[in-house]
């Protein structure tokens, strides 16, 4: 399969986890069993109806959605569920998932919030490519539409992945403005040229969705690599003329370390999947050049 889920491994770990964590209260166990039965019934019915409708109605979209839950019987082994969703013009993958959840199976789980490509919650692996669910039109996709969690991240449940590693990398590059000097007056601005603002503009567009990191082969093989999003974040500050030379020096030192810019092999996969069109690879390349220039300075 095309996702990262090493099925057997994940499964075993999950089961072990459940065994070793606090045991479920009997009431909880009983509840889960009864619920599972009731659910199976209802879902079966809903799915049969939808499948029937799909047969005589061309206006549905067929989704195959990845399912996994470490603690629910029947979902501990990753599987794909089929959903047939009535199509409306303009419908996105996120719309279809919401419809499937609200109509067929309320346990279908995915992150989403703003619906407009700014909160960065719903980066998914859709038909083999990292995309934002809210920004991807169903009409642009071949059926069945395969929806999977982001590759190269641990799956928590269904389409939800653990983002902690991504956040850790983002925060490892001292991702905050820290000028060498600030103006004295509390109402006095730091001037910035339009050109310099333009220079960092694209890098500030990052919404932390994690699509780039998930698409990067290097990051997949090396957990320590900062990855494209974090390096782009560092670029945003290193190129900001308001911070000053000392600070820039410090930032280049961070980026030059073993797991910094030099790991990038310019495959452009991050740039290709970025939903905000940030030229990630170019930013990394530019930082490499800065680093070289910087080192030559000291010769």
């Amino acid at each position, binding site marked *: 399969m095309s996702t990262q889920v090493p099925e057997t491994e994940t499964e075993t770990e999950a089961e072990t986890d459940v065994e070793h964590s606090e045991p479920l209260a009997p009431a909880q166990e009983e509840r889960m069993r009864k*619920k599972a039965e009731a659910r199976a019934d209802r879902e079966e019915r809903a799915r049969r109806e939808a499948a029937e409708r799909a047969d005589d109605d061309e206006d549905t979209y067929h989704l195959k959605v990845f399912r996994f839950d470490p603690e629910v019987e029947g979902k501990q082994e990753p599987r794909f569920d089929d959903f047939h969703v009535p199509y409306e013009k303009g419908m996105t993958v996120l719309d279809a998932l919401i419809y499937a959840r609200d109509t067929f199976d309320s346990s279908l789980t995915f992150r989403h919030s703003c619906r407009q490509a700014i909160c960065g919650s719903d980066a998914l692996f859709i038909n083999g490519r990292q995309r934002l669910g809210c920004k991807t039109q169903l009409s642009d996709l071949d059926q069945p539409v395969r929806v999977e969690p982001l590759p190269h991240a641990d799956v928590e449940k269904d389409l939800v992945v653990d983002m902690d590693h991504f956040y850790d990398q983002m925060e490892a590059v001292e991702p905050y403005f820290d000028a060498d000097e600030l103006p004295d007056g509390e109402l006095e601005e730091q001037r910035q040229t339009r050109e310099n603002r333009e220079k960092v503009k694209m890098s500030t567009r990052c919404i932390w969705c994690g699509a780039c990191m998930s698409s990067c082969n290097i990051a997949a093989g090396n957990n320590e690599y900062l990855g494209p999003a974090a390096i782009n974040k560092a670029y945003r500050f290193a190129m900001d003329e308001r911070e000053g030379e000392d600070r820039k020096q410090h930032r280049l030192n961070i980026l030059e370390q073993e797991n910094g810019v030099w790991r990038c092999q310019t495959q452009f996969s991050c740039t290709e999947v970025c939903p905000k069109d940030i030229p990630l690879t170019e930013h990394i390349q530019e930082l490499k050049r800065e680093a070289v220039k910087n080192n030559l300075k000291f010769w």
Partner: protein
Amino acid sequence: MYEHDVIVVGAGGAGLRAAIAAQEEGADVAIVSKLHPVRSHTGAAEGGINAALREGDSWEDHAYDTMKGSDYLGDAPAIETLCKDSPKEVIQLEHWGMAFSREDDGRVSQRPFGGLSFPRTTYAGAETGHQLLHTMYEQLVKRGITVYDEWYVSDLAVTDEERPEDRTCHGVVAYDIQSGELSGFRAKEGVILATGGLGQVFEHTTNAVANTGDGVAMAYRAGVPIEDMEFIQFHPTSLPSTGVLISEGVRGEGGILYNAEGERFMYEYGYASNDGELASRDVVARAELNEVGEGRGIDDEYVHLDMRHLGEERITDRLENILHLAKDFEGVDGLEEPMPVKPGQHYAMGGIETDENGETCVGGLYAAGECACASVHGSNRLGGNALPELIVFGKRAGAHAAGKDLGTAEIETGQRGDYELGELDTPVQPGEVEPAGGEGDAVADGGVAAETGSGDGHDIVERAVVRERERVQSLMEKDDGVQHAEIRSDVQDSMTEHVNVFREEDGLKQALEDIAEARERYQDVFVKDPSRTFNTDLIQTLETRNILDLAEAITLGALARDEFRGAHWRAEHQERRDEEWLKHTMLSWNDGTPELWYKPVLLEGEDKEYEPKIRSY
């Protein structure tokens, strides 16, 4: 149990600013948020931040515009605080590196916005909120402030004295979405609610799915009065199919609204003969719907917003994000064709009653940002006034909670001083299906407010946890019944049909009946997903309860206020009636039997009285 000096609920602009301010005052502060901070809906704000920064402008002018925009229902002490503090707070953001758009001289850019007498809207392209949110989160990381992200705060731990004014908040109860752990968070100094908007009460909204008004509903049920809930802003330019916002910045830069006949209707039909497209938002939203109602809409649904004449260079420089939004969410190229737009629910002017320091009438409980009502916006918020509210009042609430002396507030909270009780005929009894005292289900849907008793803070939080655990368990235990999605969407539809831009008495009453019916059905709500891992079924079920309480509060306020003021338009009452209505609509939960009351608006400023005038643009 977790313990901190100050707990901030929510991690958007107000929450982040509050946390930074509390820490600067020396407090051990933590944020508890159902979303990771960068996912917060502050990030979707586009237009800008009003601040009197330039020669020729003054905080007094900003205050005057805001008071006029509020249709004289904002409280002068709150408005003046906002306008005085905003410049300093905006430059603070600049010092934190926020990537504002720049002028040739390197200073931050400002542009015209609706209802402003000076182009004082400071902006970063058409993505000001994104830049603000990320800049502040960066500063949070720099300071190492603790964030419990993807923890859903489901209740407040408040003592249960008879009068809310005598109660104290000692913390919150939160549910770890990732693990299913329910835990208490004790706050030794204060709890700050910064939970944002409530747009999910409506079907067509610019708000995020997460904007379910949790903080307002929790505070309400804990006894804190909620204020001016009927005042809902419908933004004139949202995309028809999704509700995605098209910034007022488009009109600020010179964008023009046309009807199906190609007429510039804002002028042509006299809706706003002076300011045209840049009239206040309520005025433009009504004009658009009027055009559609008169048969001059496009597809009987929307009007056109045209920015092509601004030219590609200017559009790309200042409004680039709008091109992406129109393309991605409506399939329209804003450089080649006009964009379809219609009004969409955008902002709640009302909310948790606070003073200008962010404090509520319950000791130790604060609110800031959209969930709060100080009141800065009165009956209508001006574009560009929401973001300064976040940073100004977020900071004040954070600092005050951490012990900083901000002086005595001018605004009085709770039923103290000058207030009057109200009366209202409703077709159905609002509030709890089984008001407090009833057993079982009232607990199951979180209806019983403050059965927490007294004792030390620790005990009170502990007891709140027990109560919440019962509630969650009872929702999880049921094997059949109604699902939240059904109830939620019925209420959203009813609100969008009856409590929208145009409001009629019969419709409002119908909405109350629909909500009462939904409350009945909520008694049978159940959570189908048995999992404790990332159970969004459970979270949405809890949120739906909040939507019910707030939908009802909005509608009660709308029915009570028989006048037309700001965003609140009543078919039967077409005039602003100052002799009777220069007062705030207040609702107290009153243990499940909502009580309506009023308190006077404060028009007395620091050194001048704001005189209500005819509001024309």
